């Protein structure tokens, strides 16, 4: 796309920006926390105590691993517990307009609503 654009609009190809773009790469180190859940209650308890990085790993960066269809939490809730509606609701929490803390708070509210049904 960049090549095609530059060929079509050569006057922009050598245009200089006021500020540079700095290329970076990130290194992901995954460390097992020794926590696991078998029930929704256990899941809620672990979610409550998860770090920001842990929450980001399972809820945000997992979307790239799962090809943007879902996230680790929704995948397990649907696949492991069969709670498809809850999984969908959690997957629809807007990760662009929420902070990590507010996304987690919404998730906990959705889980609590589900628990009250039973």
């Amino acid at each position: 796309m960049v090549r095609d654009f530059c060929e079509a609009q050569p006057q922009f190809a050598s245009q200089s920006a006021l500020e540079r773009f700095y290329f970076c790469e990130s290194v992901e180190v995954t460390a097992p926390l020794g926590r696991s859940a078998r029930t929704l209650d256990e899941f809620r308890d672990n979610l409550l105590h998860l770090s920001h990085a842990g929450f980001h790993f399972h809820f945000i960066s997992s979307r790239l691993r799962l090809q943007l269809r879902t996230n680790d939490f929704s995948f397990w809730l649907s696949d492991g517990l069969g709670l498809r509606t809850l999984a969908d609701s959690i997957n629809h929490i807007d990760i662009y307009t929420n902070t990590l803390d507010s996304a987690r708070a919404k998730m906990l509210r959705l889980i609590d609503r589900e628990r009250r049904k039973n």
Partner: protein
Amino acid sequence: LKETLAVSRIPLEHYAELIGGGEIEELRALAKPLHGRSIEMINSTAVGGGVAEILNRFVPLAEELDLNIKWDVMTGAEDFFDVTKSFHNALHGEPYHASHRDFEIFLAYNEHNRATLPLDAEIVVIHDPQPAALINGRRRPGSNHWVWRCHIDLSHPNRAVWEFLEKFVSRYDGAMFSSPEFSRQLSIPQYLFYPAIDPLSEKNCPLDQDFIEQTLHRYQIDPQRPILTQISRFDRLKDPVGVIRAYRIVKRYFDCQLVLAGGSATDDPEGAIVLKEVMREANQDPDIKILELPAWAPLEVNALQRASTIVIQKSLREGFGLTVSEALWKKKPVVASAVGGIPTQIIHKHTGLLTHSVEGTAYQIRFLLSHPEIAAKLGEHGHQHVKENFLITQKLKRYLVLFLMLTRGT
């Protein structure tokens, strides 16, 4: 000659109340493979300045994770710190003609410290340019891991000084910078490391309102009128004179006060000269309070920040500018220059306001004084931003990840 530091200790578990138990659990999980590995941190001052402050908190926290860590301070006399201060300014882009003698002094003190410091830890972290030549003390390449932590902005360095330093820096196993913009093209890997504040240190912990009021009373600051504050060393790169000029513009519209409070660091011989320039510019205005705080006056700084209506950081050049994160943590609206690491902390109109001039600074201050509800919102967002990115526990996590990468396979 070696100075090994006594550091202040707060149990790691105390941070759980602020950041959540999960963060602590994660730190312990990351630290586990590093148990018993030896780490040595070296910088050039034990008190004053952001680096000493960070290490003073960082080292005991790392010890709590069962890392075998120690902090040593290189020693030097006045001639060494005169040279390194000039290097510091030159690396920030100030005009400077480095003489052959300057380089000799720099090397002589590094050589002297090389002979007296242990430098035998599995991982050696050298902070800033002053001790950079200690890499000469490495027994042989690969015998242990050496990383250089650069806390300053190297985007426009004086060429001669940088070319001199680069010879040493390029022999490290990696270099850490506070922002991609601060880095240079190097042959070694570079890592992005945000500096951090300690929310439980005396500088950032919650304070009784009584103590805040007593502090204002002691410095004859009126709590009933708006207080604009810049906390910084008296250093030309912090532009205290520019802050006074911005205040004078604001003063035409608001009956406010200006507090310029700063300590001094043992490696900054220029402070007294700049302080005189600031006094001259203030011209005995009773609403400008110039407070020369001792090198270590964290509770007073904390109280002044908490009492402020707006916190200013009008630097011309900046490393990272941790005073910005300190103010944001206290939910203060901040008006700051878009230099160095400040734009990483201040997302314009979301966590604070960025400026580029005296007039711009004055305008943004006037805007916030007229819109206190927006000021409060900026402070709230700023607090959350610091919580997620610039607390010492985040920094500890980054170091653990780096150490894991360095020691992988050794």
